Structures are given as structure tokens and as C-alpha cells.
């Protein structure tokens, strides 16, 4: 508890645009957690940007009162990288889903972790493509038969975002559940404050295409581990957990963020031109 006057309320970070998400969707909770976190961080809305790609969860920027960019499918991380490197003064968050981040945007995910730009990436993982009517995503279980596209299931093991994020160099790794918005807000605050690339996986059920995920709220449990800075230890935990340990920061690294300086080194365009002169 701090005795400071807070200038911002969570609602100051919400726009007038009404979400089109299905009632009951976990993404509403994520939106609330983000706005609560920003209020707690007391960041002026115009100094924050939220970047997204395509998908239900990628609609978040328009629902906020901060600067937003809603780009194309899978490319939120590069847009955010360019923005943060060009404007290090801004606080940049990235929101999106499992398909956007781990399938079409998979390569950018690897390299965003590796590059370690000071970004906070919040992935709403519902193990399904919602905008296109419920196809298997990279995190879907191999035997899920709910899609006409893969009626026998995909037969492919799911992508492990946190393990892969860790191996690729993410500097902060956490898993939260949309059933605990207050905890989520707390983790997001930590993620934003931690330098470098912060990855927050949110178990966010899809009420329309994955009604079976309603049980997640009962499955999830607060992870019985403390945060570690030891990547090998974090890897062992993440490799062996069942994906329902939530509510904690699971790894915090100390790698310096990638931040090329825009320092002018006493040069001018005239100097550059003079080198072509004979």
C-alpha cells in the first residue's frame, strides 16, 4: 500500500467503443485487468500504446483509450518492436491470441523473445480460432474433434508457448487465468515494470467454440512455486506442468533489453555526401 494520490482510474483507460466479444468471454476480463494495471502504474493514457494483430483478442486496442494499432494477422510483435525502438519513451503492450501469436506469427514470437525489446506480450490462449468459427489452433489438444476442418482432431501435439518463450530468451514469463482478474492485473503490472520482453499467457476460455473450457476455472490452481531467475529450473517446471498452474511469475531473467540508441555521433548528411566526392 502506498500513500500516493492516484490520478487514474481503470475506466480512464477504456474507450467508448463497445466490445463485440461474446458475453462470458475471458477477453473481457483481460481488458479489465489491463486497464486496472495501467491505472495502478499511473501511466498517462497517451504515453501507452497497445498493438495487436487479428483475432478476437486482437480487438483490445480499440476498446482502450490509449494509442492503439490493429494490424494484420500475426504481425503485432514486429509493429510493436518498431514502435518501441523508435519511441522508447512509450510503454508498449501487445495483445493477441494463440493463433495470431504462435501459428501465423510464430517466427516473430521466437525472435521477439530473443531480441528482448522492452514489451509486454499478453496472449489470450483459448486453444481455438474464434473469428473463423472454431478451428484448432497451435495450442489445441491433438484429439479435439470440434472443428469441421480437422474432424478427427489434429493429431499434433500442442505448442508449448512458455517453454518455447523461455528457450527463445523471454525475460519474464507468467501464466494467469481469466477467472482471476485481480491477480492478472497484478502480474501485468509486474510484467510492464520488468525490463525486456515479458510474456504473459492468459488461459481465457472461448464460451462459444470451446464450451468445454468452462471447467478451466475449477482446474486452475495457484502455482506452488516461487519465481526463479534460473532458466534451467524454470524449464524443468514448465516442461512438466499440466498448463493449469497459474497466478505466478514463473521466470524473471536479468538480460538487458535490446535498445539501440538514436544518438547522433557528430555526423551530418553533408559529411556522408563528402565521402562520395572525388
Amino acid at each position, binding site marked *: 500500500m502506498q500513500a500516493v494520490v492516484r490520478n487514474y482510474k481503470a475506466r480512464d483507460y477504456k474507450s467508448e467503443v463497445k466490445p463485440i466479444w461474446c458475453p462470458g468471454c475471458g477477453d473481457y476480463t483481460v481488458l479489465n485487468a489491463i486497464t486496472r494495471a495501467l491505472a495502478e502504474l499511473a501511466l498517462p493514457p497517451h504515453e501507452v500504446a497497445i498493438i495487436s494483430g487479428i483475432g478476437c483478442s486482437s480487438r483490445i486496442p480499440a476498446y482502450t483509450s490509449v494509442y492503439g494499432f490493429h494490424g494484420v494477422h500475426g504481425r503485432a510483435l514486429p509493429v510493436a518492436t*518498431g514502435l518501441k525502438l523508435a519511441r522508447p519513451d512509450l510503454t508498449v503492450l501487445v495483445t493477441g491470441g494463440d493463433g495470431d501469436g504462435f501459428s501465423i506469427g510464430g517466427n516473430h514470437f521466437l525472435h521477439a523473445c530473443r531480441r528482448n525489446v522492452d514489451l509486454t506480450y499478453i496472449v489470450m490462449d483459448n486453444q481455438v480460432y474464434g473469428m473463423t468459427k472454431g478451428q484448432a489452433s497451435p495450442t489445441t489438444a491433438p484429439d479435439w474433434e470440434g472443428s469441421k476442418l480437422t474432424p478427427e482432431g489434429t493429431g499434433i501435439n500442442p505448442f508449448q508457448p512458455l517453454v518455447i518463450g523461455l528457450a527463445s530468451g523471454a525475460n519474464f514469463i507468467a501464466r494467469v487465468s481469466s477467472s482471476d482478474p485481480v491477480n492478472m492485473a497484478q502480474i501485468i503490472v509486474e510484467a510492464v515494470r520488468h525490463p525486456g520482453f515479458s510474456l504473459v499467457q492468459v488461459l481465457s476460455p472461448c464460451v462459444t467454440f470451446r464450451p468445454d473450457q468452462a471447467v478451466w476455472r475449477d482446474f486452475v490452481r495457484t502455482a506452488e512455486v516461487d519465481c526463479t531467475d534460473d532458466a534451467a529450473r524454470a524449464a524443468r517446471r514448465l516442461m512438466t506442468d499440466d498448463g493449469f498452474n497459474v497466478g505466478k511469475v514463473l521466470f524473471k531473467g536479468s538480460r538487458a533489453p535490446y535498445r539501440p540508441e*538514436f544518438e547522433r555521433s557528430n555526423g551530418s548528411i553533408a559529411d556522408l555526401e563528402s565521402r*562520395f566526392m572525388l
Partner: protein
Amino acid sequence: MTTHSVSLVIAGSGGAGVVTAGSLLLNAAAKTGWYALMSRSSGPQIRGGEAATMLRFATRPILSQDDSFHLLMAIDWDNIGRFSAEIPFTGNSLIVGDPAHGPCPAALLAAQPRQAALALTDIAEKIEGGRPNMVALGAIAAMIGLPPQAMQTVVEQYLQRKGPAAIDASMAAFHAGFAAAADLPAIPKLPAIAAEKEPRWSITGNEATGLGILRGGVRFVAAYPITPATEILEWLAPSLAKVGGVLVQAEDELSSINQIIGASYGGVPAMTATSGPGLSLMVEALGLAVAAEVPIVVVDAMRVGPSTGIATKSEQSDLNIAVYGMHGDAPHIVVAANSVADCLFTSQWAVHLAESMQTPAIVLTDQSMGQSRAILPRPTPFTFSGQRITAPAAGEGEGEGERYQRYAVNGSGISPMAIPGTPGLAHTADGLEHNPFGTPSSQASDHQAQLDKRSRKLTQFNYANHWADIVDTDAGPGDIAIITWGSSTGPALEALQRFSATGGKARLISLRLIAPAQPDRMAAALAGVTRVLVIEQSHSGQFYRMLRAFYDLPRETLSLHQAGPLAFGPGRILEQLNSWSV
């Protein structure tokens, strides 16, 4: 052959030093006061492949490579036949080869050029540390009139770090070759001229492109390496750092274009450079930049396509993807540089256009101009006054208290852009169709209004006389026009000069602004023209078809098009002009 220029090829396998020899010769020519154009061709190997350096020297600025070469200096014959189509000869040409490597391959002898032998290896072996390529340089210098002192200065600079012994050995080999050339048949010789006659630059098209980008104000570049655009990015990396900018190497082209969109959304002018395969990957994001109205510049140094094609050779065949590549109705800017020097102007102009109109601009250059080095008159500096129109912080401008409309529909179609960090104007830029506030909308009326707006800003913009370079013969324009673009402009200009010298009348129109089309300006430029010759380097006549789609051309319009890497020489174009003027 006119004697104001001399054209030669130095060829040999990798390790023979033909690329180095070419550079030394170019630099020595610069010291002599000449103008020069150097291009190269090579095999697919990273090391050790066959290579050829093509050079043209002249006492006045050079527009293109000549129709044929006066001299081939072959260090060896290894695989040289692969280049035979790219190095045309006549019966007057001279092929000089080293007997130690056997006879000249038949593939080079179709035009029955003269042949001579020069024992490069034997001469070099007699000098400690001597190399055949330096012997060859000496012979070339003697044959074309290059003073040895010019080469001395250049070699001293080049071998400075290796010490005086290396310099002496190289120059000994050079002088031995110089002396040996006395026995060789003659080729045209150039006079030495005063080096300080006018300020000159030594620059490649790729360097000029990078410089234009910086002069335009770009301070963020995301880069993924690709031939033949890489040198633009390699030049920009240290140069940006000197002027307070940043270059980031991206994981792929999808990332590089989306990174520059992010940086530009943040208010920092941004660009990337690529070639055809990379441009193909960037097309979706180009559409995003159109819809979200984010200014970016993408340079496409074209190479032979489709697919991986021939990565090291030139073709003007990305015109279609640049103009039509995006899905939906996506008005954007396409500009094309038409010479090594013009890479500077056109890329700087492109930044100005993109920033002023908040839209992507594609700059088309190609391998030929990008990787050619030219000694040319110092380009005239120029500035463009227009820049990005940004929105003032809430309460500081008009419409105080009203909600900010990022995509306000107005007369110019250009709506002031709020840069993140500006209080009170936060909004979401969107690739989804949107209303003026940026809120996603699927309504027909919003779609129509935004399409109109995005189209209007491009059609109403004043491109001034930069849309094309127009050159007339000395006797006036006449009723013939050549319409061309990009690297085909050089040979066409030289053809026009030769045509003019014989009293011919014609006009050359080199289109710099490929999109949007300028039908009124073209109609004015074609007033009185009854015959049009369209020149381009593409197999399907992409440029000709684009002209047909957007412009009224006379009934008698002839399309001269051929696939890369071969280019139309001035002679072939002149032939057509002559056939029309009789």
C-alpha cells in the same frame, strides 16, 4: 564508334582479381578526370565463380553501357562463355587472352572480333609478388590512354596497409603490362582531361538510394538481407548512426515491413529495402499501411524473377506487383529511379511523397543501377518542403473538445495524424475498414468514404514536373516519342542523343511516377506525337500494358520488351527511330 567513350570487360574466375582490377581502374579513371560506369556480372558461387567487370569510360557523363565492347581482357577463360550474351562484340572488338590458359572459347567469337595474346601469367611470374590482374591493368591503361600516375595513386591507397613492398610489386606488374601493350592492336583511346573540371562523385545506385532516403528524413530502417538490395541496408546501417537514426536487422521481410510501420506510426519516418521475393512477402503489410494511413518507403531493387529467379541479375519485372500487388482497392505511390544518380532524387522524393500523403511509397530500382558504380557529376542538391501533417495536442488546435478523428474525411483526403504521446488524441489505427474515428466499421458508407479519401489524397497531390523526365532532340520533339522507365532510360537517352546528332526529331519520356497514373500530364507530353516506342526489360511487356491501361497512346505504338538480364542497347533503339524517320 565515337571516341568519346571506351568500353571494356575484365573477366576471369574467382580469385583472379577482376572485381578488384575493375575498381582500381575506375578509381584511376576518376583521377584522370573521366566519367565512368562500372557494372558486373558473376556466376552463382559465393567464392571462386566466374566474374566479369564491365566498364565504360568517357570524357562526358555516361548514360548507359554501350552496344558492344571494344576490349575483353581475359585473365583466364574459365566459364566465360556464360557471359557471352551479356558482352556483345563487333568485328572491331579486341579480345586479349593469356596463352597460358589456351585459346579463346568459340562462344565469344560469333562476331569475329580481333584477337591478341598477352602472356599475363609469364610476365607476372617474373616479378616477385606480381599478379596477372595488375599486368592486365597495365595493358588496359596503355590501350585506353590512362596515365600510369593515376594508377600509382590508387594502388598506393588500396595497398597502404600491406606496405611499400606490395605497392612496388603491384606497380611493377602494372608497368610491365603497360610496356607489353605496345605490341597489341589499337582500340579507342581517351584523352586525359583536367580532373577538377567539375565536381564529380563516385557512387553506386544502392548508395545513392540510401543517401536519398536519409536526405528525405528517414531515421528508422528495418532490414532483412537480400540480393541485390543488401548494399542499400549495409550503407544505411553506419550512416544512420551518424545522423541519429537506427537500423534493426529483422527476422524476415514480414517483420521488417511491420517494424517500419510501427516506427512510422510512432512518428519516425521509416523505410526498408528488399528485392522481388521480399516484396512479395511485404504485400499484405503494404495494404495495411494504405488502410491505416501510415507513411513508409519500401525500396525494391529488382532482380530476375519469378521466385528466386536469377538473384544477381537485373530485370524490370516487378512493375506489376508494385502497382497491382495488393488486394482490395489500395491506392499507393510507386516511383522508379531512372539512373544511378536518380536513385538519390527518387528515393528522397519518395520519402516526401509518403510522408506528405501518409501512404506507402514503393521505389523501384534494379540490380543494374543498384550495383553499378558511376563516376558522375555531383548531383544538384534539392529539398522538398512538404512533410507529415500531424495533429496538435487536444486544446491546442481547432475543434477543441471534439473527439479526434484520425481518419477525418476532408477535401485533401490528408487528415492530420496524431503521434503517440500527444495528449488527448489517442486512437487506434486500423487495417480494418473504419469510420473517421478509426473505429472498425462494416458499413458500406464508411467504406466508400474512406476509399474516396484515400484515393483523393493521391490524385489531388501536386507531383509537379517530377512525374517524368522529358528530353527532346535538339531540333525539337517531332512526332515520335519514346516512353520508358528505370534502367531502360539510359540506353534510350543515348539513342536519342545519337538520333539528335543526325538531325532526328523525337521526345523521350521517362516515367518516374508509375502510380498513380498522370493521364493529363501524359496527354500534354504526347501532344503532336503520332508514333510511340515503349522500351522495357520484361518478358511480358508489363510497362507497355500498364501504359495501355492508363494512358491514351497513338495507334502506332510499338512495344520493345525483352527479359532480363539482357538490356536494349542504344543501337537497337536508334535502329527503330531511324526506321520511323525515313
